[in-house]
């Protein structure tokens, strides 16, 4: 199997390289044979997928058969590892995950080349660009991170899989994240192809829209599965720690989100062409950069693999040779890709000239523009915070820590402003919005939001009394008199203030979404002579992209509610002997027993706790600590937290083992309000994206005359009479 795997990997590289070279020659040539050459390049690209797939299957087969002659399998698997986790071995180490990258990229390339009839010329260009990326990854897998390296002596058993990865979420999380990362290569390839060939019109945007949404969907699911895993597995009671690798996955997600919004400007009004092109380039660069961050070990992270030379393939290297007074520098893949993008942009930038300009600050276009700016500002802040330790190390020679205080302080206000724009955007008309229209459209959502805020205050969300979770912001960089004034209001920067604001803005957005569905539904209700709900359903079917998008926004608001609950977290750690009690909030925990269990793959020690809420028995919970490869030098400890979930809050219990000084068990108990809404919100986001991906149902032709405005050859709809109003 190792020989088959190695051979297929090498063969895949040859096929991808042929696809690249033959594809370029075919596109540059005007001879009659160019068509046949292009077809052979396309087919070799598809064959490369089969070769990489066989190679990946060979590795999986070897893992399932405990072939410890392979160094990679010895390091990441063992005999007692359950079969589902043996499948996860493919992406659990550096070499395997690079092979997995190459596999997914080849799979995307296979589908793209299979669907070449959508536009043969454009797909031929995109295929060549994708082949370039494929060739790079296959070179890395073949020559720097080959998972088929053999051991000198075959050991009887392997080291086993990292304990933290032995969870169902972890079987799904990396593939989802990789599908997202790798998927961004496809819109990048189409974008660059459109730029190179000066592709007329916006068809490439239509072609890539679904690709981008699919990649964005996978990235979203991957990020939140990671958060879910951190919450259920790591045992620290949180779900997002602003770890560099978490940030690396967030960066392309943010720019991808900005791209999905700003392409609408290009489609509807022929604007922001350069911006969109660079957004999709940046999204791709950030995907590659994320892979570099995870693989290179340049920044310390719980996710990072060991420091390796693989980073130089991505980012290049520079330095000084030991025995010669010469400096050397060579570019990595990222620099080469950037140089290619800059070259073609400079060469063909006239093709990206906007057809229209912004006419008013109060318009749908400007709300998209601001949305993009805010998203990019957030991206910049996250990138800045992630790289600042490296920058500080380069400039001053000392590596500082940039942790959650910075990321929260900067991103929470930006995020809240973004939520505000999410509500405002749909209420504004394209081109410009009159003051009367603003008043009419904003009245209901604003009143609803204020009512929600008042109700919450009545129910007890009163930051000036609670003041919990702060001080949260860092005002120090503001002028002294502002800082003094703001700090005199003790609650203003507490987490509970932000929570109240988040709930209020969330209500505002929900009201705008409801209003959009209601207004559209009313129009169709009259036309179809049906009830409002059925009309809303038809409305969504007829413009699945727009109303699917609103559902995604609704999902985001639900996630926001879950995040805002963090302000009211409670935590208590206590030693708890037999029949002792822990009191936290409304809950009382009584220790009933401590137990041990032995298993082929692990040993475990658990506490058995009876949980009461307001004196009423709820359930018995079993937080545990687990030891993988027990008694061996490579023994790994892990927590199995016990969680009682309700819509209002999670009771989260971690068993911390015995206190070595007192020999008594310790438990840490958290009350985490509203966390379950984060996971519910993600499901709504996924459903919304699926709706947006669905093709529109047949459209209803409007017999009503339209009022249009003409400027040059441009036609703009000013309004529709009768039914459309």
């Amino acid at each position: 199997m190792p020989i088959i795997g190695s051979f297929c990997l090498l063969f895949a590289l040859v096929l991808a390289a042929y696809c690249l070279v033959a594809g370029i020659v075919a596109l540059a040539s005007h001879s009659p044979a160019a068509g046949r050459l292009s077809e052979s390049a396309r087919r070799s690209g598809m064959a490369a997928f089969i070769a990489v797939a066989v190679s990946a299957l060979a590795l999986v087969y070897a893992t399932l058969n405990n072939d410890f002659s392979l160094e990679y399998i010895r390091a990441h698997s063992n005999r007692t590892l359950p079969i589902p986790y043996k499948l996860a071995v493919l992406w659990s180490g550096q070499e395997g995950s690079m092979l997995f990258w190459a596999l997914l990229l080849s799979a995307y390339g296979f589908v793209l080349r299979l669907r070449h009839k959508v536009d043969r010329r454009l797909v031929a260009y995109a295929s060549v660009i994708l082949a370039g990326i494929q060739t790079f990854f296959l070179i890395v897998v073949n020559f720097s991170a080959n998972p088929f390296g053999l051991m000198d002596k075959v050991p009887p058993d392997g080291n086993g899989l990292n304990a933290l990865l032995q969870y169902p979420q972890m079987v799904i999380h990396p593939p989802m994240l990789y599908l997202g990362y790798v998927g961004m290569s496809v819109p990048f390839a189409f974008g660059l192809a459109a730029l190179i060939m000066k592709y007329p019109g916006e068809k490439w945007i239509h072609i890539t829209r679904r690709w981008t949404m699919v990649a964005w969907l996978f990235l979203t699911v991957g990020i939140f599965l990671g958060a879910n895993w951190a919450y259920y597995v790591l045992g620290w009671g949180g779900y997002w720690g602003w770890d560099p690798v978490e940030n690396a996955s967030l960066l392309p997600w943010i720019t991808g989100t900005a791209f999905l919004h700003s392409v609408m400007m290009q489609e509807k009004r022929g604007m922001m062409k350069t911006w969109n092109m660079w957004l999709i380039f940046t999204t791709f660069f950030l995907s590659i950069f994320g892979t570099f961050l995870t693989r290179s070990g340049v920044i310390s992270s719980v996710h990072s693999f060991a420091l390796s030379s693989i980073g130089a393939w991505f980012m290049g290297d520079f330095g000084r040779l030991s025995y010669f007074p010469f400096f050397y520098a060579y570019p990595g893949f990222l620099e080469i890709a950037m140089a290619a993008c800059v070259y073609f942009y400079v060469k063909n930038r006239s093709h990206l000239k906007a057809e229209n300009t912004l006419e008013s600050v109060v318009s749908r276009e400007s709300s998209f523009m601001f949305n993009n700016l805010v998203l990019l500002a957030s991206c910049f802040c996250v990138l800045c915070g992630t790289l600042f330790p490296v920058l500080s190390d380069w400039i001053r020679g000392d590596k500082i820590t940039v942790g959650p205080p910075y990321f929260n302080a900067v991103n929470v206000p930006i995020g809240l402003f973004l939520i505000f724009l999410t509500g405002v955007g749909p209420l504004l008309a394209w081109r410009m919005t009159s003051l009367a229209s603003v008043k009419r459209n904003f009245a209901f959502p604003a009143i609803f939001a204020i009512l929600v805020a008042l109700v919450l205050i009545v129910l007890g969300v009163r930051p000036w009394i609670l003041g919990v979770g702060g001080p949260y912001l860092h005002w120090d960089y503001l002028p002294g008199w502002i800082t003094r004034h703001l700090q005199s209001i003790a609650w203003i920067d507490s987490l509970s203030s932000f929570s109240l604001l988040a709930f209020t803005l969330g209500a505002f957005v929900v009201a705008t979404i409801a209003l959009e569905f209601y207004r559209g539904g009313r129009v169709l209700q009259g036309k179809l002579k049906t009830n409002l709900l059925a009309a809303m359903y038809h409305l969504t079917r007829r413009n699945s992209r727009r109303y699917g998008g609103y559902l995604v926004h609704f999902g985001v608001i639900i996630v926001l509610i879950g995040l805002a609950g963090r302000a009211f977290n409670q935590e208590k750690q206590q030693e708890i002997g037999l029949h002792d009690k822990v009191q936290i909030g409304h809950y009382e925990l009584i220790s009933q027993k401590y137990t041990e269990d032995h298993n082929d793959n692990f040993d475990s020690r658990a506490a058995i706790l009876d949980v009461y809420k307001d004196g009423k028995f709820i359930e018995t919970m079993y937080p545990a600590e687990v030891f993988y490869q027990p008694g061996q030098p490579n023994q790994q400890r892990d927590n199995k937290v016990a969680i009682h979930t309700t819509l209002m809050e999670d009771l989260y219990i971690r068993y911390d083992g015995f206190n070595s000084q007192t020999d008594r068990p310790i438990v840490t108990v958290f009350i985490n309000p509203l966390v379950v809404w984060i996971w519910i919100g993600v499901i709504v986001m996924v459903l919304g994206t699926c709706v947006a991906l669905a093709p529109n149902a047949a459209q209803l032709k409007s017999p009503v005359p339209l009022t249009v405005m003409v400027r040059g050859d441009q036609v703009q709809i000013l309004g529709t009479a009768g039914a459309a109003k």
Partner: protein
Amino acid sequence: MKRATLVLLFCFSLGAAAQDNERYRDLGNKIQCSCGCNQILLQCNHVGCQSSDGMIRELRTALATYKDDEDVLNWFRHSYGMTVVVAPSTHGFELMIWVAPPLLVLSAFALVFFLIQRWRERAVPVMATGADPKMDDLRAKVREETEL
């Protein structure tokens, strides 16, 4: 009079204690526990943690010794290394990371307003009369592409 002075002194001491507590919370949230858990000092409360209790004591001592917050953080940087402070300083080189995001956002917004202003000066829209037969095709296309 004596009672009034006592009340005033009591209020003053309460205010000072509240201010100290505020400083303690603020700075305690900017320092990382050195036990290796990567948690904020005031959030790292493992029973038996070898580091957090000692560090919290040191924080209280440093608060009493130094009046300037930056001096307290510098003391921790000096004792535990640069990585112990999780929030970058608001002075010198590290100020850049705090200032750059708001500056960037404000600059971007200013640029948008400026561009809109410039574009508006250029654009002179012409109203369609609705009677031009050449526009019929375009109008039909608009109707076709408008779903309602």
